[in-house]
């Protein structure tokens, strides 16, 4: 989104003797080039972990040796609580499932829930925030009070209430994924709402919005063309932070028994709940692997989000050494410009 809004403006800038391909201006690639030292290390580490997570989620079918609900193969049942061995590299659970397969399939479930939850909360949160911020009035006041009330409330409890409403507490694969995703969505709408609303309030007083009004552009056109396009600057940040929280909320729901049925999909939180009693008898493999999977996936996404956050803020961004100062200054100055650049591009359209 942000790449799109930058494109019309950066073209004239291309006449300067600085070569930047389209690739270099894509959101993450741009930040990667901009980063130095430790920040770059953190960003790269985050990107690698996230990539591993996404790959195992997408290709779960080919990576996992067994199905997530498979209890036996040609040579008989897997057996319950078997320690790691060549045929089951991470052992089997108390229910007789293969731990490695369930961890890989669990990545797929988590990714599906994450994507659905984020798409839903972006659409609803952005729409409500835009309406509230641009139109104002009593609608704005009511929505702000409601959003604040929800925001202050423990998110897990709200997600529990939502999952009771949607599925009565248990469900099939897609039913469960949607139930979990909608539960998570309701929790995160206030965050998108707040950010977009405050941006919309700021932007609606800009000169280009006024001139659009003078020309006679309709309210929806101003809202979606001029205001929305310029208020999406911070979205990638909230997006990454919420993606990680979605994984945690899903696992929390699963741990309390409000996630997806074990036969419908693999879910890390559910597996951890079942492993709770194993731990006291010294069986570590049923708990460690799904737990580490959660930690790593959240860690990866959070590292990316944190790095993007730091790189977007000139006060927190690391600088290159003094020797490379002119180059660094040139490339550093760009993201600071993003706001006016985006505003101008919205104006010109």
């Amino acid at each position, binding site marked *: 989104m942000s790449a799109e809004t930058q494109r019309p403006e950066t073209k004239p800038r291309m006449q300067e003797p600085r070569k930047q391909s389209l690739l270099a201006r894509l959101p993450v690639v741009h930040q990667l080039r901009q980063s130095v030292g430790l920040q770059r290390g953190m960003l790269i580490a985050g990107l690698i972990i996230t990539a591993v997570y996404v790959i195992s989620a997408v290709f779960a079918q080919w990576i996992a040796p067994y199905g997530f609900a498979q209890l036996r193969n040609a040579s008989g049942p897997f057996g319950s609580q078997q320690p790691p061995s060549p045929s089951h590299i991470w052992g089997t659970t108390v229910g007789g499932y293969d731990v490695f397969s369930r961890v890989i399939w669990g990545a797929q479930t988590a990714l599906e829930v994450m994507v659905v939850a984020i798409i839903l909360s972006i659409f609803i949160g952005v729409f409500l925030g835009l309406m509230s911020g641009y139109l104002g009035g009593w609608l704005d006041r009511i929505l702000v009070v409601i959003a604040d009330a929800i925001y202050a409330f423990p998110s897990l409890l709200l997600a529990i*209430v939502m999952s*009771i409403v949607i599925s009565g507490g248990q469900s099939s694969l897609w039913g469960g994924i949607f139930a979990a995703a909608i539960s998570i969505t309701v929790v995160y709408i206030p965050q998108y709402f707040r950010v977009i609303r405050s941006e919309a309030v700021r932007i609606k007083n800009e000169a280009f919005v006024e001139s659009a009004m003078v020309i006679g552009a309709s309210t929806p056109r101003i809202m979606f063309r001029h205001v929305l396009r310029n208020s999406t600057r911070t979205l990638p940040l909230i997006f990454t932070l919420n993606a990680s929280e979605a994984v945690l909320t899903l696992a929390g729901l699963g741990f309390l028994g409000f996630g997806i049925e074990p036969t419908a999909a693999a879910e890390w939180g559910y597996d951890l709940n079942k492993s709770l009693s194993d*731990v006291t008898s010294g069986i570590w493999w049923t708990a*460690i692997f799904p737990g580490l999977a959660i930690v790593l996936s959240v*860690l990866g996404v959070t590292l990316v989000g944190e790095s993007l956050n730091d790189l977007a803020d000139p*006060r*927190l961004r690391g600088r290159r050494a003094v020797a490379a100062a002119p180059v660094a200054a040139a490339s550093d100055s760009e993201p600071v410009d993003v706001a006016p650049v985006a505003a101008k591009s919205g104006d010109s359209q």
Partner: protein
Amino acid sequence: MSSLTAQAAPETAAESTTSFKKQRTGGGLGRYIVVRFLLIIPTIFILVTLVFFLMRLTGDPITAALGGRLSGSQLHERIHAAGYDRPILVQYFEYLGQIATGNFGTSISDNRPITTILVTYGAATLELAFYALIVAFIVGIPLGMLAAYFRDKGQDAALRVFAILCYATPVFFAGILLKLIFSVWLNVLPVAGRASTGSEFEMQDLPNKTGFYLIDAFQTGDPAVISDVLLHAVLPALTLGLLTAGIFLRLVRTNVIGTLNTDYVDAARSRGVSEYRLVRKHAYKPALIPIITVIGLQIALLLSGAVLTESTFEWKGLGFQLAQYLGARDFVAVQGIVALLAVIVALTNFVVDVAAAIIDPRVRY
């Protein structure tokens, strides 16, 4: 001496009243507290309304709890007796009236008033939250200052990764890991519960039991009981405390770095104040103000975390009880506890905001 204080007293009193009047014209603390207190009411009202209608969308709670176990006519009788067949708006206004008088309903599965559940189990949750906050302060604040001091160096990166790890680890997994290491492999700490049966028995007959096991343990005066209670608290406190510590660390780091960039710190630096003293004395205190405000928001996180921590360690508090009722599909109890927690969250946020306003006058309206 006494005449001196007697003379001084009216003077200070007069001074404080004049300053109070001055403040009043610009929006004083008193006005802020009143406005902020009135804002609690819509918050509680919205949350209670939301939870009520959401829970009723699924149907009546009696069918949910006892659906499979009673015949159709018996179910209908129970539903009628409880009044769940009346129009939803009538039930809603009755519910609002009940909440206004402090009645949060009665659980279906074990027929106990929700307020009794709060009194019985609230102390355990409060005790856990208290321990967790201590851990969070002890770990989070010094490490955050350290990270700001070593900004952008290796130590800083390590501390930040530690903070992200604290946040990225689900509390129940952290609990399981700590259990595995300290209770099973090293066998130095108890696996679960708030105290061993022996200690609980000893604390049972106390004349004025508080429900706070640490206070009760001190009342028995038995060192074995005290150490038993403390040993049981270590792992749950670490589990919940580290989650919050990660957030405190990040907050302190960002805020101290922010204040280190201000003019007055530059001025102090130019006077030759040491870098250590800058962080410790000059940047630290102003950085604490936003942290106090954020603690208010952490209460919600702490409660979410407490539900999961208590389930992991069989710590018999409100969260553990909530998980039990969820398992039993007792949605009246769930609704009651959730509504009660909404009130608690709203009240805590009020107290925190007022505290922030007392410390930092700029916060006031």
